[in-house]
């Protein structure tokens, strides 16, 4: 089991990672989800031992890995741009880690047949990696990381450079492989769709801190912070001022009533999440349709006041609409 404890890292004087602590259990895929520049990749490099943290520790089964150099950590890494060795063919790329472990040629050949079969690349052994397509290169990179049978797999935006259809196909394959091998994995991405497909658990990273972690459905249901709600696109976040103890809050959309977990004082400023309502239950707010985008079988309609909802039929541009939203209290 991987334990990451209180990692701190600065880059050019600016804090990049702050107090990062989390665990990765056996047979679990944890997803580090966050925008570019949130320090996700650096965190992977620190876990791999390829970067040094200012403070904090990385442990495996209770053993502190700080003195263990990267080549002895036995963690597999898969990069966004694959980082295949251009001077080696597919076979030699995948065999690289096995050769480093001084495996016999016979054993290497057996293992290669195994992993290349696992990623559907049997017969590609002698191909030059520079001649492969992006998806094939990514599968070679995966096979290369899998081959030495690492105790942990780490993915740094592995599908970022691929088109959507290919991404989903590879993601399904990856999920199957992770399931079959029962390897613990850390998956870094900025794409929540990817995260929701692969992750058992997500860690939301914002400005170098883990702001929320949990099963993705829970995180979606309770984003807990304004930033998380906006990053995930759960709904529209608005500022409000508490008017009285009966949970009436003044907002740009008028005075709204909201139930919060704890009480707020009068005059206190809070943030509200206006989530598109699935049923007809919810508060009606009206506005004009400003933007309509077809998304996965329905239309995402953004109003001129910034709210968005999902509709089955596309409204006309500038059409006056009354939409239903659920109002939630953030933090």
């Amino acid at each position, binding site marked *: 089991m991987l334990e990451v404890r209180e990692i701190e890292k600065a880059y050019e004087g600016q804090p990049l990672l702050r107090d990062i602590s989390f665990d990765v259990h056996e047979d679990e895929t944890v997803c580090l989800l966050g925008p570019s520049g949130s320090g996700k990749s650096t965190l992977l*490099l620190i876990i*791999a*031992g*390829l970067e*040094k943290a200012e403070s904090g520790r990385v442990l495996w089964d209770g053993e502190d890995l700080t003195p263990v*150099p*990267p*080549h*002895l*950590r*036995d*963690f*597999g*890494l898969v*990069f966004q*741009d694959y*980082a*295949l*060795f*251009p*001077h080696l063919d597919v076979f030699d790329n995948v065999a*690289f*880690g096995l*050769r*480093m*472990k001084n495996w016999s040629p016979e054993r290497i050949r057996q293992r290669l047949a195994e992993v290349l079969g696992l990623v559907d690349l049997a017969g590609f052994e002698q191909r030059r990696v*520079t001649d492969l397509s992006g998806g094939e290169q990514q599968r070679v990179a995966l096979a*290369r*990381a899998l081959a*030495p049978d690492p105790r942990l797999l780490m993915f740094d935006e592995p599908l970022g450079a691929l088109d959507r259809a290919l991404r989903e196909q590879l993601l399904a394959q990856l999920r199957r492989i992770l399931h079959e091998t029962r390897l613990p994995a850390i998956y870094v991405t900025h794409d929540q769709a990817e995260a929701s497909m692969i992750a058992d658990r997500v860690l939301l990273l914002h400005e170098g801190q883990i702001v929320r972690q949990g099963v993705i459905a829970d995180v979606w249901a309770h984003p807990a912070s304004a930033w998380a709600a906006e990053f995930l696109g759960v709904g529209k976040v608005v500022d409000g001022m508490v008017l009285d103890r009966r949970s009436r809050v003044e907002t740009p959309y008028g005075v709204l009533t909201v139930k919060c977990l704890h009480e707020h004082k009068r005059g206190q400023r809070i943030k509200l999440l206006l989530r598109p309502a699935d049923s007809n239950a919810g508060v009606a707010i009206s506005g004009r349709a400003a933007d309509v985008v077809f998304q996965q079988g329905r239309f995402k309609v953004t109003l001129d006041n910034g709210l968005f909802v999902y509709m089955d039929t596309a409204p006309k541009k500038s059409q006056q609409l009354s939409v239903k939203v659920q109002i939630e209290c953030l933090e």
Partner: protein
Amino acid sequence: MRLPLLQRAKRGAAPRSWLATSPGWVGRLLLWLAPLSFLAVFFFMPFARILAYSFSWEALSAGNLQLALHTLGFTLYQAVLSTLLTLLVGLPAAYLMARFAFPGKSVLRALTAVPFMLPTVVVAAGFNALLGPRGLMNLLLMRGLSINTPPITFVGTLGAILLAHVFYNTTIVIRIVGNSLSRFDPKLEQAARSLGADRRRLWWHVVLPLLRPALLAAAVLVFLFDFTSFGVILLLGGPSFATLEVEIYVQSLYYLNLPLAALLALIQLACTLIFSIVYTRVITASTVQTAPRSAEGNLRGPSSLREKLFVSAMVLVISLLFVLPMAALPIRSVSQLEANRGQRGEVAPGFTTQYYTELFVNRRNSITYVPPFEAALNSLGYAAATVILSLAMGFPAAWGLVKPGPLERVLDPILILPLGASAVTLGLGFIVSFGRWLIHPWMVPLAHTLVALPFVIRTLQPALATIPARLRQAAASLGASPFKVWQTVDWPILRRATLSAATFAFTISLGEFGATALISRPEYPTIPIAIYRFLSQPGGLNYGQAMAMATLLMALAAAGIFLIERSRLPGAGEF
């Protein structure tokens, strides 16, 4: 001085202009008339004479062949050793430059580039000023230890030759291998590390294989320069270290054995040709490409103790190697450290301008003695003539090459051929072809023009090719007359290239030693020849004057290098 050899211009890319309204066959031939007839008379004819000489019975005697073979062997030996040593210094230096950011880095980089363009006499004089029998180190040690003989034996050893070659060519390794290293994707290293490769295996299995094309290219190039080196070997090693170049010089000037010299020149030329072909193969065969990335991405400050030690040690080594010889020269030229010839008793060490003032005095009152001041005048005159001649030949040739037709495709390599011939071979060609005319001093700038012409063409041609037709059309549509167009569009671009080419020609001519050593008349010496003479004469005063002249030449060359660097077209590339 050897940069543009590698700076093959991309031809035919940009739209062109009044040149593009290309002259017909007749026009083109007229354009080529001057440069081609010049080359025919002063390069190909002498070259044919050398061939004729070397295939005579006189040349192909058993004794000659044995000497030639022996000389070739030593030439290869010293070139291989020099190349290995250069790689030994150059590879860590390239790694330092490609991977680490540290204070003073740009200065260090500029510093390593300077020797590459310095005249050989200056480099030889610099090492002499530092480590020679009258150099700073020896004189200071003799004074400090109260001994009468110089404790360091440097000049006249193979070590001196090797060190000077390392000094000269390390920058090639830094540039070529360093460029390749800095474009290296750090993820490849991270991937290898995460796959279980320790540092040693990372280098052996990933970094070195990927660097191989760059390493090979750098090694072949360094080898080529070491193979054809002349000035440093003659000045620092002495005639006993007979490379092909030195032997050609010795045989033609001292033994007057022109057939043997011609045979050696032929061997030299053949080898150079072979190595050049190998080099071209190597750089075109470097197919394995990692993802291109910005060079700055890989730079960082040294973090671990090991890295800090490496960076400090390398900065120290490079600074010592490059600063000491170049600093020793001007320091030695103003230091009185020993008695002059004829002076008796103890001499107080200290600052002196005597070596400089002596340059203007004909102390010996002899007719054959030419005061250094006159040598400088000769040099400046030759350089000016070289500039005019090489621009006159270079402009039409560069124009012709801008839009290459079938004619130009044949002519292009022909124009660059003189580069492959060493300066000493050019000199020998002049001797066997124009022996009787060599009493005329104007033969020297002709030879210098041959050396400078390929550089001038390679500097002018990219500039001519980059003048975009659109600019010209825009200017014309805005109401500019053809002359105005030329004045406002063409000339500002050409001016820089012309200045650069002229400076190249000027600096090459000032520092040229190989050809000049063979063909210049004793009564018309140039600065490098005068330095060589002073260095080979006894006495502290002569030595001091050599130092003073070499310092002046170094300053002139440095000014030239600075001018060329400043007028370099953006994006024209380092190599």
